[in-house]
Each structure stands twice: as C-alpha cells, then as structure tokens.
C-alpha cells in the first residue's frame, strides 16, 4: 500500500486514523437522524445533555484505558476502582463528615495508587496486566464493599452533588466539561509529550522501543497509573450523580469502556489509537442506549445493538487496514470480545 509520494505532507496513518474517527462521527450523525425521525424527544437540548452526561461518564474512564491499550496492556480494574473511589468519598464525607475536598482528594490518590500497584505487578512481577488487573478488580471491589459495609451510603452534601449534576451556562452539564478536560489532557499527554511518544512506541514494538533505551515497564506503569486516576475521577462523578457510594456502582462500566475504546479505533494490541476516537465511541454507545430507551425498545435489544456496533467497527478496521498482520490482529480482537461477552452472560 504505497501511498502516492508526490508532496505528501500528511502521514498516511494520520489520514487513516482521521477517517476512522470521522466514520464513527458519521455513524453518530446517521443514528441521530434516525432517532430524530422516530421520536420528537430525541433531538431536544435536555435529551442531548443526557446523552452527553452518559457519554462523559464512559469517556472519562475510557480515556485512561485508551492509553493502557495503546501501550499494549489492558486494565480490567477500572470499573472496580471507580466503585472504590465513589465508596471512599461517600464513607469519608457522609459517614465521617469529612470536608468534601478531603473525600475527593483521598479518592483521587487511592485510584492512581491502585493503578500504580497494577503497573508494579505487571512490570516487576512480570504478571500480564490482564491477570494483574483482574486481581485488582477483585481487590478493589472487595475493598469497596468493606468500606461501605455492603450497603450504599447516600446523602452527599450539595457541593459534592454539583460534580455530577451541576449545570453551567445554558444548563450545560459540568460532567461534560470535566470529560472534555480529561480527554484533552490525555490527548496532550499522548501527542505532545515524550511520554506519549513512548507509549505509542512501546505498544507498537516493545523490542524496538527497548533497544532504543526506553524502559517498557516504566511506560506501562505510568499508563496503568493514569488509568487508575481517570477511573477514580469516574467514581467521583458516578457517586455524585447517584448521590451515593456503593461497592457495585460502576463495576458494570468496564465493558462499555472497552467497547468505546475499540469502537474508537484503538488497537487492543497496542501502537495505534486516539482519545478522540474513544470519545466518539462513547458518544455512539450512549446515543444508541438513550435513543432505544426513548423509542421503547427492550433493553435486551440495546445490548444486541451495542454488540453489532462493535462488530461493525471491527469490520471498518479490517477495511481500512489492508495488510495481513492487521487483519489477523482484528480476528484476535473479535475472539477476545466474544470471550468477554461470554464471561459477562453466564
């Protein structure tokens, strides 16, 4: 696939990535049109804000996950860390009457610490992140149930509720602003810093990266720590939206987050991807879920629709990436998703 070379200014990978992200936005547009024809409620400001809030929750935890996947690792513990973050905030603020900022700070320290632990286990004990973060999933979730004593703790002060339910000018949701901020920060890290470059290098070819002196383990450690951080942010937002902390709030967000990243065009096997693709994936998922509820489709069909979108996104990748290695990779991705889906519905 030799691109025409005369005066090529843009990289072909950028072009393909842009096309890939663009196509997801195009699908979003089509889906919006369809729902707009089907129900008058869809294309209203309030409903679109709801879609945005829903997409933001997923996009925030998926932002860190995107970095981890580009570095060719996975983080299965984000949902559980999210639950633990919200639980810790609830326990400190509601049970112990701690100031809101202390609850937030502690949650935002614990999250990256657990991510750091994921990274250390992956790096120093040479345990694959799939296993390390699976173990962390259990540990974080168990810890969340322990601190909350197995029951939701509700009744946050109003200042805390503003995180998840606050509105700014024109009733624009605060959550969406937070999500845009997180996405933009991760975008800057990935595209403008040496660290980001190294994340792509390690995920693209770990051997080549290490021959140039890049510490693969260190890069993966930072990626997993960042993922723990965005998961904790997600936990604060979720607990604020639900006005409670609980051991099982957020645990079911793992698969939508993975789906958002993959629909957004990030490779499960590293080296390529972007955080804006992930944002598009999250927006598409939340659009589908929201619209189908509005037109009274059973929730079972929503899950099927999401599954079909994932397959469609994979198919798109197949078409855009013509070389054989990439094609084989997509098959492995599909297998992985099938396995994950099976695990979810026993």
């Amino acid at each position, binding site marked *: *696939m*030799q*691109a025409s*070379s*005369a*005066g*090529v*200014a*843009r*990289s*072909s*990978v*950028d072009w393909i990535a842009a096309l890939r992200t663009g196509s997801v936005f195009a699908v979003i547009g089509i889906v919006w049109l369809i729902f707009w024809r089907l129900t008058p409620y869809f294309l209203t400001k309030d409903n679109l804000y709801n879609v945005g809030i829903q997409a933001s929750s997923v996009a925030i935890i998926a932002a860190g996950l995107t970095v981890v996947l580009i570095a060719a690792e996975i983080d299965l513990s984000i949902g559980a860390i999210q639950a633990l973050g919200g639980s810790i905030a609830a326990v400190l603020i509601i049970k112990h009457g701690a100031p809101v900022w202390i609850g937030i700070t502690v949650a935002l320290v614990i999250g990256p610490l657990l991510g750091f632990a994921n990274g250390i286990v992956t790096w120093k004990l040479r345990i694959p992140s799939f296993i390390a973060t699976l173990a962390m999933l259990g540990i974080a979730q168990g810890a969340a149930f322990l601190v909350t004593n197995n029951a939701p703790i509700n009744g946050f002060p109003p200042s805390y509720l503003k995180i998840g339910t606050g509105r700014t000018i024109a009733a624009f949701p605060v959550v969406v602003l937070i999500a845009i901020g997180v996405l933009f920060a991760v975008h800057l890290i990935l595209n*403008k*810093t*040496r*660290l980001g*470059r*190294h994340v*792509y*290098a390690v*995920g*693209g*070819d770990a*051997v*080549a*990266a290490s*021959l*140039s*002196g*890049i510490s693969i383990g260190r890069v993966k450690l930072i990626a997993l720590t960042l993922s723990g951080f965005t998961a904790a942010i997600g936990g604060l937002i979720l607990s604020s939206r639900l006005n409670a902390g609980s051991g099982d709030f957020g645990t079911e967000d793992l698969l939508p987050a993975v789906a958002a990243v993959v629909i957004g065009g990030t490779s499960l096997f590293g*080296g*390529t991807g972007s955080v804006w693709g992930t944002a598009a994936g999250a927006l598409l998922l939340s659009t589908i879920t929201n619209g189908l509820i509005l037109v009274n489709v059973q929730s079972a069909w929503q899950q099927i629709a999401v599954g079909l979108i994932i397959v469609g996104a994979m198919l798109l990748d197949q078409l855009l990436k013509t*070389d054989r290695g990439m094609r084989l990779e997509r098959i492995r991705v599909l297998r992985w998703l099938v396995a994950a889906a099976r695990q979810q519905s026993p």
Partner: protein
Amino acid sequence: MSEPAAPGAVLALRGVKKSFGGVGALHGVDLDIGAGEVVGLVGDNGAGKSTLIKTIGGVHIPDAGEMYVHGVRREHMTAVEAQRLGIETIHQSLGLVDTLDVAANIFMNRERVRRDPIGRTVGWLDKRGMYAESARALEAFSLPHSLLRRPVRTLSGGQRQMVAIARAVYWQPKLVMMDEPTAALAVVHAAKVLELVRSLAASGIAVILVSHDMGHVLQVTNRVVVLRHGSKVADMPTNETSHQEIVMYITGHRGTNDLAAGGDGHEDVRR
C-alpha cells in the same frame, strides 16, 4: 590478555564475558577498533555476534571484562549512554517501530523537547524541529522527504534499512555497528549499503559489520574477526586472508584444533 588499549582506539574490549542463565554466550572477548576502521564480525549462528554487539551497545551489561570507549573505561553502560558516547547500532531487526512515522523513529527516545521551561519539565515535543532535522537526515541518504511522515510499515525493505542507517548516522556516531544489514536486501540495495559502509569509514567512523555474506565482508572490511562458541578464534587483516580460511575458522576446522593442540586454554589469535 590485559594489554592496554591502543591509544587511538574508538573501542577496546578486554576479556568481555557474558552469560545468560548460566549459559555462556561470550567467553572473554578482546577487540580493538580504531577510527575509520571496518571490522567484519563473522561466525556461525549462536557464535555470539549479536550478543557481542548488544554488549558493546549497552543493551547487555557484561558479566566480566573491561570496555574502553575512547580510552575511558565504561562500566554498566546503558544503551542510552552508549548512544551518548557515539556508539550506534543498526540491529538486524532494524529497531524501528512500524506504527510510528520515520521522524518519530529517527528521534526515538531522543525526542527533542521545546526549550522553554515548561517544555523541559513536561517533555513537550518540538515536532517541527524534529521533522526539519529528520528531513536533513533523509537528504543525506537521498531519501525523499515524502517518507518523513509515513509510518515505517508502509516503507519497502530497502527504504527501512536506509532509514535505520540514516538514523544511526544522524547522531554523528564514532562507531556504527551493523547486524546483517544486507541480509534482507535486493542486490542493488545491498551494494548501496556496502558503499555506505565505505563512505562512513572514509569520514573516520569505525564500523563493525556483522554478516554471513563472506563476499561482502571481504569487499569492505579492513579486518575480519571470527567468533566461535563465544570466543574470538581469529582476528586478521582482510587482505591477508581468504574466503576459505574464514570459513575454516567459522566451522572450527582451524583455531579450535590449534586450541586443543596447544592445550593452554587460549585461542589461536592471529593479529
């Protein structure tokens, strides 16, 4: 074995040993190489050529022995330090990340950051500067600028090899090590690489060329060093040896027999 390093030597090794999990890969290798010299490093598969190159390049830390770079002893040298001292390696795998573009590969782990205080602390990339410099690096090898932003995986085998060499040369090395640079190339491209080796040497750069192709080795090197089972069994001027003699050292029909006859545990080294 502990004769001092020659004063002009870019690199001098004395009794360098390396083993992996108890399996010896290098059993005390001595090697000197001076500026502008081209040394052919040959040996059978598993003889220790790649291990030696990676040890010199700081990828492996030697278990024993001494390494001198420009007469200064270096211990526990990392890959980054080796690069800083002017040692560049073109690995057989080329060491390019396929998913990144050519400029990103040229600056891999040596990315330029912006000079302002924020740039330095955060590691903010100076992309414009890196593209401009990479364009210069490509120009030196008459590669088209259009390659600059292309991911390496879209390049042909010959182009990839040239990019790897261009990267090494861009950093103004004192010693360039090439591991099988011609193995995967068409004849035309191989000839180009050999020509390049000559011009590097002519500009005073020391070159270590690892190759299975005796024709290429005889064509461009000043000296041939033969490794066998992790030991140096021959080190001879290229114009005083022959294809046949080199092969005899590689296969053990020479050198190791002498070793058995000599029985003093020291290899027969012709200098």
